[in-house]
């Protein structure tokens, strides 16, 4: 097959760029665990209010013995509960979500916190917020007529100011 020399040069450039992108992604995935959240853990969505972890009085942020913070939330049409969550900056935070009804998505604007919340499963995501701020948490999977109004607020405060 004949390939024009100019086209051949361009193919080399494209291959080199693709190799650089792939190398960066693979290196950071292996060394820094930069990978999409993955958690296979089942739960009965119809019994969340009776569960030990997702009962109403157990929701919210709490400090863990290892110095990290765990946030437990429930997604339901049309809101995330609790509505306001405060976590410390520069601290590992593990979010755990379950849905009461249908498929939802959760995304904190301006951060990398984003995942799907699938009925019957517990979604888990671990991240660190590098700087304080107030972030809107929105549903990014269409879940019904009130989808546009499904949101909550995440406040990231300096580590020294956080009271777990």
């Amino acid at each position, binding site marked *: 097959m004949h390939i024009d020399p100019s086209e051949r040069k361009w193919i080399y450039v494209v291959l080199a760029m693709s190799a650089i992108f792939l190398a*960066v992604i693979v290196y950071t995935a292996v060394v820094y665990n930069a990978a999409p959240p993955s958690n296979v853990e089942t739960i009965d969505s119809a019994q969340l209010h009776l569960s030990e972890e997702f009962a109403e009085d157990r929701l919210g942020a709490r400090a863990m013995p290892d110095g990290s913070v765990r946030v437990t939330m429930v997604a339901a049409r049309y809101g995330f509960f609790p509505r306001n969550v405060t976590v410390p900056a520069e601290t590992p935070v593990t979010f755990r979500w379950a849905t009461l009804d249908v498929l939802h998505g959760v995304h904190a604007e*301006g951060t*990398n916190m984003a995942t799907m919340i699938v009925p019957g499963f517990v979604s888990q995501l671990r*991240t*660190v917020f*590098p700087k304080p701020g107030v972030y809107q948490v929105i549903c990014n999977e269409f879940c019904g007529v009130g989808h546009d109004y499904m949101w909550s607020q995440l406040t990231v405060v300096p580590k020294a100011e956080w009271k777990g």
Partner: protein
Amino acid sequence: MADLSEDEQRRLMTAPPRGTLVLMLLLAAAFLLAWLYLYFGVYWLRGLAS
């Protein structure tokens, strides 16, 4: 082209398109820098999530 001799026209037509190659390389470099900026300057600085 009309003012050029046949030799000059042939030489021009067979010469490699250097200007085009330079433009392509500039475009590739800009694309590469933009990708690296989005990865390390935006995605990375927001804190890794896994």
